């Protein structure tokens, strides 16, 4: 069961280096041949900041505070906002995550769905906010079968 008191939980700040080789690896995995990702100082692909998986560990990650049941949990939505061109290889980002929202809705086929939202802010060396990620997870009333539930507003 989701812990509604998790709202407001902040992770410790963490750093993330944007690396040329990692961009290349990621771009190949998403079948991109765009020269913008393969040059000397490439920009990151739109969903690249998901690679915080390699940087955000231990108390930097507030998501466990949500206590979402892994067997009934699914990734419902993911959003990336860029406040200017996306960051380039060679940038060191300073990042921090917090749980921004937890709410429930009735599912299309009955049963309550609980949504939890984690926001991660990415700042460059000067402290400027360059990007923001928003992860929405959902816990279904039953284990998911063929179709994932989708958020309906």
């Amino acid at each position, binding site marked *: 069961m989701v812990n509604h008191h998790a709202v407001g939980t902040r992770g410790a700040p963490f750093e993330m280096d944007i690396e040329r080789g990692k961009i290349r690896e990621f771009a190949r995995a*998403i079948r991109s041949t765009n020269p913008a990702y393969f040059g000397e100082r490439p920009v990151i692909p*739109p969903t690249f900041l*998901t690679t915080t998986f390699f940087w955000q560990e231990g108390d930097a990650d507030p998501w466990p505070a949500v206590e979402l049941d892994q067997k009934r949990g699914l990734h419902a939505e*993911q*959003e*990336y906002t860029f406040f200017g061109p996306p960051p380039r290889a060679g940038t060191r980002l300073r990042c921090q995550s917090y749980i921004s929202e937890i709410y429930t809705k009735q599912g299309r086929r009955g049963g309550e769905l609980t949504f939890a939202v984690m926001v991660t802010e990415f700042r460059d060396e000067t402290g400027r906010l360059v990007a923001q990620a928003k992860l929405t997870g959902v816990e279904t009333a039953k284990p998911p079968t063929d179709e*994932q539930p989708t958020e309906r507003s």
Partner: protein
Amino acid sequence: MSVPPPPPPWVVGPVTRTDFVRYQGASGDMNPIHHDEEFARAAGFPTPFSVGMWQAGLLSTYATDWLGAENVRLFRVRFKEQVWPGDTLTCEGTVLREYDQDGERRVDVELTCRRQTGGVAVTAWATFVVPEPSPDKEAAHVA
């Protein structure tokens, strides 16, 4: 300045476990449900299924080839149906609206990744700065 027309639909597949694993390694999300047969079956699924973020990444590839990697300002994804080994995916996009914001010409687009069944795997909404026409294309157009 105007928005270039969307590229033709991009067909990817049949997709394989190797595609999923390669994406998992690149992204760092090593959830075994996307590559471990026994783990997936124990969780009630017939086989491993794809990482939703991989399909999202395919849509971003289509979108940045269309409108430019440096121009993206928002990329929002909603996960719908799961994608299974052997599926063939089709990515396409449409323009929703064009407008001025923060002194820039912007465009909102909707992107869809469908399975061979017609079911939607992932929908994405993205905002891009409208790309400057390249001199080459201008010249070609005039010629």
